[in-house]
């Protein structure tokens, strides 16, 4: 996370939540992702040593599952839902509008590291389609106008 120093103690505290067993590899990586917003190569190595798996295995997991990121994400995450209903109700147009507004493509982070634009496959709020999640907040029946206003407040 920007502006927050990551210390060795933090990562140790996370690892101690789990027994040393390969079955906890994914849970551990999830906690690291949640705490630091990404998985740094150093942390990946520490986790591998802790649960006792080769780095290649952790690497394959970190690249296979979509919730992991190997690069730092922006301060705020904008997730545009592209579930079926959101697709039918113009979710794709909304992503494109966000791309134009933020001048990044989906999956990318703005130059000032303020925002990361992502798409997500259904957040389960289909009756309010199209839906955008900004950090932990849901925006239903989203329009570019509404998103712009919301981003200004952040």
């Amino acid at each position, binding site marked *: 996370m920007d502006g927050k120093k990551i210390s060795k103690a933090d990562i140790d505290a996370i690892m101690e939540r789990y027994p040393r067993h390969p*079955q906890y*590899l994914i849970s551990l990586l999830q906690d690291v992702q949640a705490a630091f917003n990404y998985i740094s190569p150093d942390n990946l190595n520490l986790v591998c040593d802790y649960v006792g798996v080769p780095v290649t295995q952790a690497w394959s997991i970190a690249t296979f599952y979509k*919730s992991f990121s190997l690069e730092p994400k922006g301060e705020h995450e904008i997730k545009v839902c592209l579930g*079926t209903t959101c697709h039918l109700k113009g979710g794709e*147009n909304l992503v494109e509008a966000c791309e134009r507004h933020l001048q990044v493509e989906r999956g990318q982070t703005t130059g000032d590291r303020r925002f990361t634009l992502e798409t997500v496959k259904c957040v389960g709020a*289909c*009756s309010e389609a199209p839906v955008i999640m900004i950090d932990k907040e*849901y925006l239903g029946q989203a329009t570019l106008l509404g998103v712009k206003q919301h981003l200004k407040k952040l």
Partner: protein
Amino acid sequence: MKKIKDVAELEGLRQSLHAAHDPQQPVARVCLGPGCLALGAEKVSQAFKSALKKSKANFKVQPLIKTTGCQGLCSQGTLVNLSPADLLYVRVKPEDVPEIVETSLVKGQVLERLLYSENGTKYKSAAEIPFYRAQQKVILKNVGVIDPLDINDAIRCGAYQSLAKALMDLSPAEVIKTVELSGLRGRGGGGFPTAYKWRRAVENARQNPGPVYLIANGEEGDPGAFMDRAIMEGDPHAVIEGMLIGGYALGAHQGFLYVRHEYPIAIHHLSVAVQQARALGLLGKNILGSGFAFDLQLNRGAGAYVCGEETAIIASLEGRVGEPVMRPPYPVEQGLWGRPTVINNVETWANVPHIIRMGAEGYANLGVPPSTGTKIFSLVGKVKNSGLVEVPMGISLGTLVEEIGGGVPGQKGFKAVQTGGPSGGIVPYEFKDVTAEAAEKKTLSVDFDSMAKTGSTMGGGGMIVMDEHDCVVDLARYFLRFLEEESCGKCLPCRLGLKGMLEFLNQFAKGQGTPQDLDALESLGQAVADGSLCGLGKRAPNPVLTSIRYFRDEYLAHIVDHKCPAGVCKDLISFRIDPKICDGCGLCAKHCPEACISGKKKKLFTINEAACIRCGVCRDVCPLDAVRVV
């Protein structure tokens, strides 16, 4: 919390909770389901709390503000249900709350303007609203009623009673027999008989002694589906109780809740519920004094659609990449760490306590054998009352969409429904290929087998209604793109076949290709279905194959006439404002993201076609339907 030692203590707790509950106490239940949350329901519940604090009224009984899981009628959110009158207020905004408190909670009067109305009728009781009236709530009975973060509220409403009954009155074999006679089939979409799976696991464990594991599949990855989310968020104890009963029947002592990481609230509610159940001794050793031990571990999915497949879940739980493996051996033979493992969908587990409560026969009376019981659907898309519904199996598609769903909004016609998510199909409303009786009524019975006959599947319960403005080619392309991205890449037919199919559809969407390509696409789809390793690839061609089967003309319109009849495929359309209809309200210009619509108020507006990106916003906002696709 004090541990509950035996069944008598559980019953004692329930009765004391019941006695402490005053049925006349005013309760405002604020829905915090997925739909209402997206509309700002949290602010409504906070507004209630602060309005109540500020209120100077003298209450005989202090009103209670409860936050609940999904109450169903998502399109009318935020929903607030007031008991004891069973008043449902819809579209509640935080600024309405002080008035609700003063009028309804203090004076007990009805606030007419917030009532649900349909065809001119205002409904003063939630149960009378057509959306609810035609439903039959069994699994969702407590969802939207109880506070999911309070185990006492769940126990008061009957949670863990079936567990007590199973532990005291039934042998493990009798539990399995009951589930078998009830006819319960997997609610994740496969429709596989649950008891058969259970029995196989027991047999395998007998031959090869050691632990048996249970898994609840909460990786609800199908877009357009939120049934499991609603259960996990609204009544997490139902899932825990179902797994406890399953654990007892199967001789298992460890279960896993595998929940999609996009559902942070479900994860939170389940983890609180597990902690509270553990604190009361409902999870752990010697449960209710029976000597039976069972515990649950909560695992978050890491973002992979394929992890809804059972062998992929096992791989993920073991800390590996979620790649499916060949079956057999099935998980009931060799599952988690090589041990017999029963994987059931969240909704399936949540059915189990009700089967024990109602008895096999009582449960089997619901639905149409061999599809018994009820099914939860998320009814969304182009339908007036979208939301979460529970209906007996075998209900007609017409009842579901027109009566409960209230039909398609506006003047547009009901074209098709998409069921079963990316592995399901697109079936037209004017249905012909099913049973004679149903065909006569031109309507389709919604149960496992009738749906399968259409080439679609019932799937997990996502039901997306499409109208004439939705293009089947575009939707089939959307699903293929989804699956092509989510394919784990292990087997060739799925990895390359889906890419090849997508190329065809990309061409069609641009108005390219030949009618022969359509046949080639069909045979490629068949090859992918035949050759893929797991369910993802086997069923991936379904949306394409069913849509070609029922909507060949629409495909041909793209390929031969270079037109998209629904007006969706961007390369084939342009927008124009009909000068005869436009009254110059200017809404289109206001909403145009490219600012390429110009005109003066009360005069004709025009679209600059060169700058138009065909996003369709103008057409959506026009109150007069003056924007034409040409």
